[in-house]
C-alpha cells in the first residue's frame, strides 16, 4: 500500500462524529451562553450606562464566569458536551487562558502561570490586534487618500 492509499484507507475506517448530536449541542450551549450575555446586557442598561460601557462590562462579567467555571473544574465538562458552543463564546476565551494558568502553576508563578497563560489564547490576541491595526490604517488610506 502506498502512503496515500493508506491515508485514504484510514479516513474510511475512522469512526464518524455524531454530526447531528454535536451540532444540536453546540447550538444549545452556545445559544444559552449568548442568552446569558443578553440578560446581563439588559440588566446593565437599567443603570443608565452607555453602549460601550455595557458591552465592556458584559464581556468582563462573562470572562469572570468562564474563569470561575474553569477554576471549579466545570468548564471542561461543558466543553465536552457543547464543543464549539463552549469554545466560540468569550467564556471559551477565558477558559483558554485560565486553564493553562492553573495547569502550569507547578512550574511556578513566573515561568509557569504567567509565562504559559497565553499559550492557547495567544493567537487570538496576535491576529486580532494585528488585523485591527491593518483595518485602521486601511481606513485612513481609503478615506484620506481617496
Amino acid at each position, binding site marked *: *500500500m502506498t*502512503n*496515500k492509499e*493508506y*491515508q485514504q*484507507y*484510514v479516513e474510511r*475506517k*475512522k*469512526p*464518524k*462524529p455524531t454530526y447531528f448530536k*454535536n451540532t444540536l449541542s453546540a447550538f444549545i450551549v452556545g445559544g444559552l451562553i449568548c442568552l446569558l450575555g443578553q440578560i446581563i446586557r439588559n440588566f446593565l442598561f437599567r443603570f443608565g450606562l452607555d453602549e460601550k460601557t455595557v458591552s465592556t462590562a458584559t464581556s468582563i462579567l462573562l470572562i469572570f464566569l468562564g474563569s470561575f467555571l*474553569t*477554576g471549579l*473544574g466545570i*468548564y*471542561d*465538562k*461543558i*466543553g*465536552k458536551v*457543547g*464543543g464549539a458552543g*463552549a*469554545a466560540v463564546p468569550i467564556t*471559551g476565551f477565558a*477558559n*483558554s487562558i*485560565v*486553564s*493553562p494558568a*492553573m*495547569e*502550569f502553576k*507547578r512550574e511556578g508563578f513566573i515561568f509557569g502561570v504567567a509565562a504559559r497563560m497565553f499559550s*492557547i489564547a495567544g493567537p487570538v490576541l496576535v491576529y486580532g490586534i494585528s488585523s485591527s491595526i491593518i483595518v485602521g490604517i486601511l481606513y485612513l488610506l481609503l478615506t484620506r487618500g481617496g
Partner: protein
Amino acid sequence: MAIKKIGKQTVKLQNPPSIIGTATIVGPKEGEGPLKDYFDIVLEDDMWGQESFEKAEAKIQEEAIKLAISNANLSTSDIDYLFSGDLLNQITSSSYTARQLEIPYFGLYGACSTMTESLSLGAMAIDGGFANYVVCATSSHFSSAERQFRFPLEYGAQRPLTSQWTVTGAGATVLSATGNGPYITYITTGKIKDYGITDANNMGSAMAPAAIDTITQHFQDTGYSPDDYDLIITGDLAAVGKKILLDLMGKKGYDLSKNYTDCGVKIFDGVEQDTHAGGSGCACAAVVFNGYIYKEMIKGNLNRVLLVATGALHSPISTLQGESIPGIAHAVTIDNSLN
C-alpha cells in the same frame, strides 16, 4: 557472529530468561475497568500525595519496580540492570525513579512500545550471559501526558472519537537467568513505519502499520502462524487500530480473528468509561501484560503469548512542524514451556 538471529528481525533465545516477579499499580479509572481485579495496587487518587503529576508518575513507577522485585523474593541490590522509560520529556519519570533505586540503568524511549522494548533488551542481556537478574519497567500518567502532548486539564476541547485515553500506572517485570517460566523465547525487533498519518488524535492508525510489519516479519522469521499462539496482543492500537490490523493482516493471508486483541481495548470499557477508542500510554501494555496476561499464564489459561507493544514516536513539536507520526512495534514471545 549472530548465531541466535533467525530471519531478518528475530532472535531465538538459547538461554530463555524466566519471569520471576511482576507488579502493577494503576490509577482510579483503570481500577474501575474490566481488568480491575488483576492489578496489585489501585490508587484512590492519581496524585498519590505528590505535588505534581510528574512526581506522582515517578513514584508510581518506583513503587511498581520495588513491588516486582519483592514479589520475586529479591532486593534491589540483586538486580544487575534496570531497563525503563516513559513518555515525558527526557524520560524524567524513569530517571528520577532510577535515582531512588540505585540500580545500573538504561533509559529507553519507545513511547508506548517501551514495555516490549525493555523486555527485549532485558531478555537479551540475560540470554547473552550479561546479567542474572534484570528489571524491565515503564509508566505513564494521563495528566502528565496531557499537559505535555495535548491541552491543560481544564481546557474545554472536545475529544474526537479516534482519540485514546492515556493509562495512569506502571508495570514492572523481573527477569531471571534461572527459573521455571514463563519464559521469553523469541524477540522480534520492529522497524519504524510511517505512512504519513499526521493526526495525533488518531494514533492507532499511525501505529498499525508498524504492528502489521513486525507481526508479519515475526511469522516469516520463525515459521510460526497465528494458530501457534493462545493470544496475540498489541499494546495500544485501540479500537480503530485493531480493526485496521485485523483487516490488513487478513488481506496478507493471516487470520488473527480468533486470538487477537489489543491492550488498549481490554483495559477500559469504552462505553461506560467514555474512553473513545481505548487506552494508550506506556503503562497500557505494561499493566495489561504484568497484571492480566502474566496471571492468566501462571494459571495455565494462556500458555503461549505474542506481546507486541506499539509506540508513536512523534513529539508535540514534530506535529506542529507538519511531520507525520512514525510508529514502531516490538514483539516478544512468552511461553510457559520451552518445547
